[in-house]
């Protein structure tokens, strides 16, 4: 065994940090036993800190450089040159900021509908961008990946594998048919599709376990090594 329990000193900035992090870590783990005020405290703390963190970073990285500073510059531009050009630029800069401020109409029920203009822009943007992206990576690329192996069949087993993959894809796609009842011969194919899906779900679950356990190893190593000094 190693040297035994030697906690990190409480009298350095680093030490205080390790102590606080360790206590909060234990507080979260206490949830595994049951809900309790200590967990609830750390949960509330985490929510508050994370929102504060988000607020500051959003202000620093988006609102200030992309909204307020350009507007400020626009105003200076108008007051200095006063031309129609600088005014047009200013209006252009103002559009997203105004749209953003429309979000605040949500607090006034009568004008709340105005915030929908901003939401509509936001959602239209997402919908328009997602169509080609999905066509490209979720459909064309998947077809390509399924049929490309047939170009390089060099052994009996590579053919068998390519066929297993082909049958799997087709039966899974049949499973997703909505306008046809899953019975008879068609039902058998869709059932085969569910078999493939189950293998995928099992494999994904099994494969992810390793990464999740690594997280726990990481936290326990922190507690036992950095804090308690149990591991050399």
């Amino acid at each position, binding site marked *: 065994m190693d040297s035994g329990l030697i906690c990190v000193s409480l009298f350095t900035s680093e030490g205080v940090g390790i102590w606080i992090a360790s206590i*909060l870590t234990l507080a979260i783990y206490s949830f595994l036993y049951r809900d309790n005020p200590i967990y609830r405290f750390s949960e509330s703390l985490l929510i508050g*800190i994370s*929102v504060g963190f988000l607020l*500051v970073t959003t202000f620093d990285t988006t609102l200030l450089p992309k909204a307020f500073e350009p507007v400020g510059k626009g105003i200076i531009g108008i007051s200095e040159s006063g031309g129609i050009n600088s005014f047009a630029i200013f209006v252009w800069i103002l559009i997203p900021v105004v*749209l953003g401020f429309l979000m605040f109409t949500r607090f006034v029920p009568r004008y709340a509908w105005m915030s929908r203009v901003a939401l*509509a822009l936001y959602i239209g943007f997402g919908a328009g961008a997602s169509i080609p992206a*999905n066509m490209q990576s979720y459909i064309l690329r998947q077809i390509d990946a399924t049929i490309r192996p047939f170009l390089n069949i060099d052994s009996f087993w590579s053919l068998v594998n390519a066929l297993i993959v082909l049958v799997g894809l087709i039966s899974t796609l049949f499973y997703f048919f909505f306008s046809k009842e899953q019975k008879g011969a068609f039902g058998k194919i869709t059932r085969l599709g569910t078999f493939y899906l189950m*293998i995928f779900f099992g494999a994904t679950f099994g494969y992810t376990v390793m990464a999740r356990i690594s997280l726990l190893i990481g936290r326990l190593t922190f507690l036992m090594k950095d804090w308690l000094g149990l591991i050399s």
Partner: protein
Amino acid sequence: MRRSFPILVCFGFGTIMLAQFFIPSKLSTGAYNEITNWVQIIYAFALIVGVVGLIRYHLSRVSRRQGGWFFNLVTVSSLFMMAFLGFVWGRGDHSPFMWVFNNMMAPMQATVFSLLAFFVASAAYRGFVARNIEAFLLLFSAVMIMFGIASIGNSIPPFSDIANWILMNPSMTARRGIFIGVGLGTIAVSLRVILGVERTYLGKE
């Protein structure tokens, strides 16, 4: 106006985003950059609205002394503390803001994440029971992968080979099937949104 104008905006920006994918010209890339900028700005304002709502929610519970109001107070005060640290001393590497991030926020998040190590175990115990063929396949492929990839089975050739084969063939192809389905579903929803057929998100009045 209240309803048709937002739908028009949605149609307009949806079409621009769709078209710019195929148009490499300067105007198109410029529009793309400008719109993503706008979206970020709108998001930032929505966030402020969300945070204001959040603070109102917690403060009203505190002022009404509702059950557990102390914890609402913890949330609001830690939020203000973090904002204060960030706005006064900045976000530099050695700032108090980053100290709180490194010693409080990051370890707590990592710990919540690591709860999954426990939850995968309890979910597996309950869910991996061979009630029928489907459940058996789910169980079988999970155990083969766990044993053959991450545990001592990795050193025993047939197990690691079987595990890799499952990952690369049947599992991969089912995932492709899901991808294609999700892709089609996504495109259909997006088309309905752009065409104004799907308008639930706008509510009514």
